[in-house]
């Protein structure tokens, strides 16, 4: 198995013109070049190949290949789940859940996380070059959640992993989990979609559109060709991030964290500096985001979420997406999440019931908003551990000695 997950050298035409962040990421994770013989047929009709897939693994695949867990990451996250990030230097985004002694323990599971298609941490996206050696930029085909899952499935084929004990993810990661279960039911033993929906709502599309317009309104964006012009649409991307960040929090969380507290001053400044702490916080979130994320990639990935509508891909009836599914589902939502509120998860549960699927649904009491799925939520960990334990017993997975 080790040979299959070896790190091939970062060289060849597919690695020309890498961005700095991509190069740093690829140096610290695994990758594969796929679609050489059989290109990826995308929903938009374009055939993409060859393409790069950057991924990270923790733990070891057991001899009967029954302990693989796929973590699907959210919009702006990546494959560095449980280790220091090669670009930001911050700790892994899901270290609360993944690691020794944690719910997803590498001693027990072979954990895989794959940078999504269209991403900017090593997997092919708009930053990559087309077959003629020109940067794709906005000529990169628009990808969908289903396309992301196709690329992930192709990597599992490449690694010789027949099926997954569990596919788990929050937000856009949850959308991928649903897509996995719908399009590859026999490869998904259990599925854990967290804080997500079976289709992106009008309100969520609206917020994404504000973000995209902010990027495209930045003169440095140059119609998407900013790298050719050696510019960065930092202002636009930063505003996009600020808007999105508000949607990840709850009113209570913002109030508790900042209230109307002033930033480094005792009185209002009667100007447009960051008087309030909340302003300063958002500006900081925006400016640090620019250092680790690519603006075009942000356009493509938000678009993929907007296009996601699992029911419409199945004759308009969500239950059809899960007809006869053998997968065990466990859904999670958080009471204060207004980006993907509980009722969205409940709709998925209704559809799964209509398909007589094996489903559990946990709504976690939390005032932390959508971000709760990334934070220390003991109730989620406790119930998720129980669900995985039950599923492992049915799967015949042995406990960690």
């Amino acid at each position, binding site marked *: 198995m080790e040979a299959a997950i070896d790190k091939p050298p970062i060289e060849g035409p597919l690695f020309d013109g890498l961005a700095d962040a991509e190069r740093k990421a690829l140096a610290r994770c695994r990758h594969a070049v796929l679609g050489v013989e059989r290109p990826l047929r995308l929903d938009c009709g374009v055939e993409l190949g060859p393409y790069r897939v950057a991924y990270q693994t923790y733990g070891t695949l057991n001899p009967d290949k029954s302990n693989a867990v796929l973590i699907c990451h959210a919009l702006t996250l990546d494959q560095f789940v449980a280790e220091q990030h090669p670009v930001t230097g911050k700790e892994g985004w899901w270290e609360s859940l993944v690691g020794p002694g944690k719910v997803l323990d590498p001693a027990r599971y072979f954990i895989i996380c794959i940078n999504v298609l269209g991403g900017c941490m090593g997997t092919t996206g708009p930053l990559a070059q087309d077959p003629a050696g020109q940067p794709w930029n906005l000529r990169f085909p628009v990808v969908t959640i289903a396309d992301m899952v196709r690329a992930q499935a192709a990597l599992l084929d490449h690694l010789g992993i027949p099926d997954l004990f569990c596919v788990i993810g929050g937000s856009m990661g949850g959308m991928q989990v649903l897509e996995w279960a719908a399009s590859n039911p026999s490869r998904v033993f259990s599925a854990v979609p967290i804080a997500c929906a079976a289709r992106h709502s009008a309100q969520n599309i609206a917020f994404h559109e504000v973000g995209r317009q902010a990027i495209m309104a930045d003169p440095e964006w140059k119609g998407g060709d900013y790298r050719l012009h050696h510019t960065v649409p930092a202002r636009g991307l930063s505003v996009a991030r600020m808007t999105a960040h508000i949607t990840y929090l709850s009113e209570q969380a913002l109030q508790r964290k900042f209230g109307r507290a002033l930033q480094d001053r005792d009185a209002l400044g009667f100007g447009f500096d960051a008087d309030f702490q909340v302003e300063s916080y958002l500006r900081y979130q925006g400016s640090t985001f620019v250092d680790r994320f690519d603006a075009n990639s942000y356009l493509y990935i938000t678009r993929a979420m907007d296009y996601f509508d699992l029911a419409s891909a199945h004759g308009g009836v969500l239950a059809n997406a899960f007809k006869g599914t053998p997968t065990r589902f466990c859904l999670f939502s958080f009471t204060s999440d207004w980006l993907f509120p509980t009722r969205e998860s409940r709709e998925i549960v209704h559809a799964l019931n209509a398909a007589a699927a094996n489903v*559990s649904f946990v709504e976690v009491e939390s005032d932390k908003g959508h971000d709760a799925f990334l934070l220390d939520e003991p109730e989620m960990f406790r119930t998720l551990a129980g669900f995985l334990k*039950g599923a492992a017993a049915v799967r015949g997975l042995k406990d960690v000695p």
Partner: protein
Amino acid sequence: MTATAIRVDLQLIADMVDPSTRALDVGCGDGSLLAYLVNFKRVDARGMELSQTGVNACVANGLSVIQGDADADLRDYPDDAFDYVILSQTLQATREPREVLRQMLRVGKRAIVSFPNFAHWQVRLRLVFGGRMPETPSLPYKWYDTPNIHLCSIDDFRGLCRDMGVRIERAIVLDRNSKPISLPPLLANLLGEQAVFMLKRD
């Protein structure tokens, strides 16, 4: 997870369920019946529970449970999704017991229902001689805070089954100590404190 001894009425229900079948327990509470069915009878058992706290406790124990209620959420399921749909000590708290029963027998090939008997002699005595709404071990609530809005007697329930054209495959009547008793119907309706019925569409 190990299932230990469960309540006598739940044990009676569990005994009615054939091994390796599919069952839905509506109002599964802390999941003790579910756990028993899964561990000792290899049943593909699912649960529905009104309280989210109850749901979370069940899921943490590795059981497949969703938040939902009998009145609203049974209609989601397709016909014949389960071999058994179980409703223990909950029918009397539903808004539309007749519709719930109909849905149970649509979703399940069989329905297992247990409920407190409102014609039990203690209940009758309380009302006739005490002149107050009955409070008994199986009906422990005050009139103003009881969740039980559609109480019935064993004979009432038999009548509903007759009206609905539902076949009663088994009927077990329990005394005050939750022990099954074998009595002619008239006495059962007087001495039975609760009853467990297994029903099938005719």
